[in-house]
């Protein structure tokens, strides 16, 4: 009798432990999904900010009217890639927009008139803010994947994941640059 009770208690503890781990991993998976959407939100926000930014810059110089067109084109590529689920070309397009952003910052440095404009100053803060938010949302996304992968692969948790593999076992890709881009960025040198 005593043995049965002890076994029952142990079974109950194991059961609740199992549920606890299951729920924890579900939360982590949803956090990853939400963090991925957060990147989309920031990308969308950036597009709108840059449009208004380029409009301000245009007033001061004929700063490559094509830039706006470039942003729009890259944006179109990114959206198309998102719809077709092609992560790689989407990331490439978004990185293209990032490069335009750093060029814009350089333009600010070169034109004192522009630097003095209060609107433009606010917009410059806006560029930094926008790029930071985007970078940090990517970082948060990768962090949540790290947390999930570490949990998934540790002992005990891995048993639970093995038992409910269809609901708990996913392979999320870290947000990263494509190989050839990494090489290009590594070899990049500032020309003065």
């Amino acid at each position, binding site marked *: 009798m005593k043995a049965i009770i002890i076994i029952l208690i142990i079974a109950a503890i194991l059961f609740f432990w199992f549920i606890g781990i299951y729920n924890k991993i579900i939360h982590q998976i949803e*956090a990853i999904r*939400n*963090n991925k959407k*957060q990147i989309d939100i*920031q990308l969308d926000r950036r597009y709108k900010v840059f449009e208004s930014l380029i409009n301000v810059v245009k007033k001061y110089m004929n700063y490559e009217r094509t830039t706006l067109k470039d942003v729009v084109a890259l944006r179109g590529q990114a959206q198309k890639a998102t719809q077709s689920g092609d992560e790689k070309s989407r990331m490439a397009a978004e990185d293209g927009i990032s490069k335009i952003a750093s060029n814009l910052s350089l333009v600010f440095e070169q034109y004192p008139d522009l630097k003095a404009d209060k609107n433009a*100053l*606010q917009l410059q*803060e806006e560029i*930094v*803010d926008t790029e*930071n*938010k985007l970078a*940090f*949302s990517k*970082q*948060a996304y990768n*962090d*949540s994947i790290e947390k999930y992968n570490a949990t998934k692969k540790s002992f005990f948790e891995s048993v639970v994941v093995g038992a409910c593999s269809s609901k708990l076992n996913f392979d999320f890709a870290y947000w990263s640059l494509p190989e050839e881009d990494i090489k290009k960025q590594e070899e990049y040198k500032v020309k003065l």
Partner: protein
Amino acid sequence: MRNYTQTKACDWREQLVINKRKTIGVIGLFILIYLAIGFLLDLYAHNGFAPGNFTNVFNALFTLKIIPWATITMGGIAIVALYVTFALHDRLMLLGTKYHKITSTTAKTPEEQQLYNVVEEMKIAASLRYMPKIYLIDADYMNAFASGYSEKSALIAITRGLMQKLNRSELQAVIAHELSHIRHGDIKLTLTASVLSSIMLIVVDILFYNAIFGGMSNRRQGGGNKLVLIVILLRYVLPIITVLLMLFLSRAREYMADAGSVELMRDNHPLARALMKIGQDHRDNSQSYKKEYGQTQHEDLRRAAYIFDPIDAKIDPVVSFTSLFSTHPSIAKRLRALGFKISS
């Protein structure tokens, strides 16, 4: 201005693990002491200090043959006290300061807008669900603190001096430090420890006066001596122990928040620069800041929560027993944990 050099990479993951372990140790010790005090009270209530009675009552309590009502009551009081403290705490923390709230729509100057942006950026990096409330304290000294018992009620307050004297990335590092306090649950933790220690000290005080004044009648029975000795010892040693434990806890959590700041920024330089600047600024203006801290009421409420303890710069807003020790590790030690070495 002192210089600093990076001596090793900042391993924030390791820092987090080390200080988490320290925290578990301190909190475990706290709960043990709390239970021990309750147990002592139960022993006293069941006359366990009468001669020959001790082992019997001790065993009966330990095996739960006598229900330890005093311990249970103390537990209940702790829960109620914690609830009340949590509910009132975020408003208490700003007591005595002149402050105003900053939102995305009420930011008046570009600086305030930048502050709001920086907090929002760090919120995204930490993937917090709620935007913390931001308060700007109208003071020249450079300091910042976080409060709130959950993500939802979290607030970050920084002084105008800090906002104006730090550049964007340094400000960001300070905000990341404060947000890390919030996401690590430090406010809840230190509040719990301080509420528990206050209750403990009150209970020991009650026991002390009971033992002294009730001691006469007990002594006639010949059993009070042991208790009186223990209680007198406790009354003078326990406050020191709790203060030391609280300081140890608070320092461990500071290291953790520093590591958390590096985790969010992925860069240890901005925080190091910010800490150096804040420390230097306090030394340069120690006279005027002494006055300003002194004029702000209830400064003692915020001391442990600040990113920089004014006492490190020999500015002592409240003279008390705890002022002998800083709630924070020294700037040099914090920089060392971040991988830097100060050279003058």
